[in-house]
């Protein structure tokens, strides 16, 4: 009887709701809330510092970053403007700065590409990698301002500061891409472009599959040796979510041939691009697995001459910050000319345009 008398004091609504509240919850993830942490930034920072402390080895593996930075600069040159203040977010060894001192591939006589750029602010978390080439001659040809970031997910800049933001081969280590992209959008001046490139999709699929097969055969299970990467389809949505306009996303594959799996892994290590997934197994890959993976790679993907191809899939993205006087795409159905006719006309004349 006692319990009944207590129940009588509880208002009827609470009484009806109480059992529900204990079993079910309702949660909303607010934008900007901490997301799942996939990559260890501390680990990545350590790898980059260690890689850059061996200057010679680190410079020898710049082939990929230099090539990608050069292609990125070409995309910047396609925009017919002068950029007084440009941010290079995730600069690695200032590869973009060096590539800007070379002339454009489209117009080799026009002088260095850096003529169109005022100050380039190169920001990265790893001090050693950032300052690795600080005493090389190219630093005099372009106005580089090196800045060390405390975190690769925070941009410590005022809104509306930059005329363009570039990012080359570093965004694939970011945990919270939507937030970083909206920060980039914020620091851009209105009607200014963000041009970025990141590794994505099928990057290093040969290595991934060989290691998986080797581990399945040797250990009976698989563990994480390569990062999860964004896909082309995701990037458009990400840019749009961050508030960018007039998006362009395209893909480029660079295939590099290596003599063996060990050279590939050594090069990745010297780039500071080794595995930094939080959930990875501690310690190096087992030797049995490595030996097995080498020959599985050779059989499954190897070239005829015995070399091993490694695919790097690059996702280029261009987005513009919103501005009221920005040119907008024409409305659907307002086109006066069929693109089909235009393309077929080009084909008939034998031209490629």
């Amino acid at each position: 009887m006692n319990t009944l008398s207590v129940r009588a004091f509880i208002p009827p609504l609470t009484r009806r709701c109480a059992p529900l509240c204990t079993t079910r919850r309702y949660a909303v993830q607010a934008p900007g809330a901490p997301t799942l942490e996939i990559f260890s930034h501390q680990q990545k920072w350590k790898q980059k510092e260690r890689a850059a402390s061996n200057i010679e080895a680190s410079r020898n593996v710049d082939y990929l970053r230099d090539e990608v930075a050069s292609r990125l600069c070409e995309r910047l040159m396609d925009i017919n403007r002068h950029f007084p203040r440009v941010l290079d977010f995730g600069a690695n060894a200032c590869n973009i700065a060096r590539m800007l001192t070379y002339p454009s591939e489209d117009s080799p006589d026009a002088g260095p590409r850096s003529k169109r750029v005022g100050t380039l602010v190169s920001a990265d978390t790893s001090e050693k990698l950032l300052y690795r080439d600080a005493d090389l001659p190219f630093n005099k040809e372009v106005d580089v301002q090196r800045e060390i970031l405390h975190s690769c997910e925070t941009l410590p800049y005022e809104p509306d500061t930059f005329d363009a933001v570039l990012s080359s081969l570093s965004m694939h280590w970011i945990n919270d891409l939507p937030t970083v992209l909206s920060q980039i959008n914020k620091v851009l001046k209105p009607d200014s472009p963000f041009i970025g490139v990141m590794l994505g999709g099928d990057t290093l699929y040969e290595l991934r599959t060989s290691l998986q097969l080797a581990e399945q055969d040797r250990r009976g299970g698989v563990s994480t040796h390569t990062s999860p990467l964004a896909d082309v389809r995701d990037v458009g949505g990400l840019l749009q979510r961050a508030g960018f306009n007039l998006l362009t996303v395209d893909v480029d594959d660079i295939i590099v041939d290596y003599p063996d799996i060990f050279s590939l892994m050594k090069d990745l290590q010297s780039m500071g691009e080794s595995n930094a997934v939080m959930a990875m197994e501690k310690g190096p890959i087992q030797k049995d697995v490595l030996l097995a993976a080498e020959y599985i790679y050779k059989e499954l993907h190897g070239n005829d001459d015995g070399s091993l191809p490694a695919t790097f899939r690059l996702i280029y993205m261009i987005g513009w910050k919103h501005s009221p006087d920005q040119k907008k795409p024409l409305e659907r159905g307002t086109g006066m000319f069929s693109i089909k006719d235009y393309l077929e006309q080009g084909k008939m004349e034998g031209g490629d345009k």
Partner: protein
Amino acid sequence: MTPQTRNLTRPIDKFAAAAAKCSKEGTAYGKCILADYNNVHLEKCGAEFMKLRECFMVSLSPDMHEYH
């Protein structure tokens, strides 16, 4: 330790050199895995791998104590 001496004695280089000497056994092992690579299980190609491992150990012999 200077970078030069470290590069010359890096264990992975010795490992690579020893592994490269066993391409006959390695190819046999690779072919065995590839024959049905959608259904790989523990020790699927155990016999082939043992041959590869033996060859590898012999070519690594001066440093055999380093291999566990």
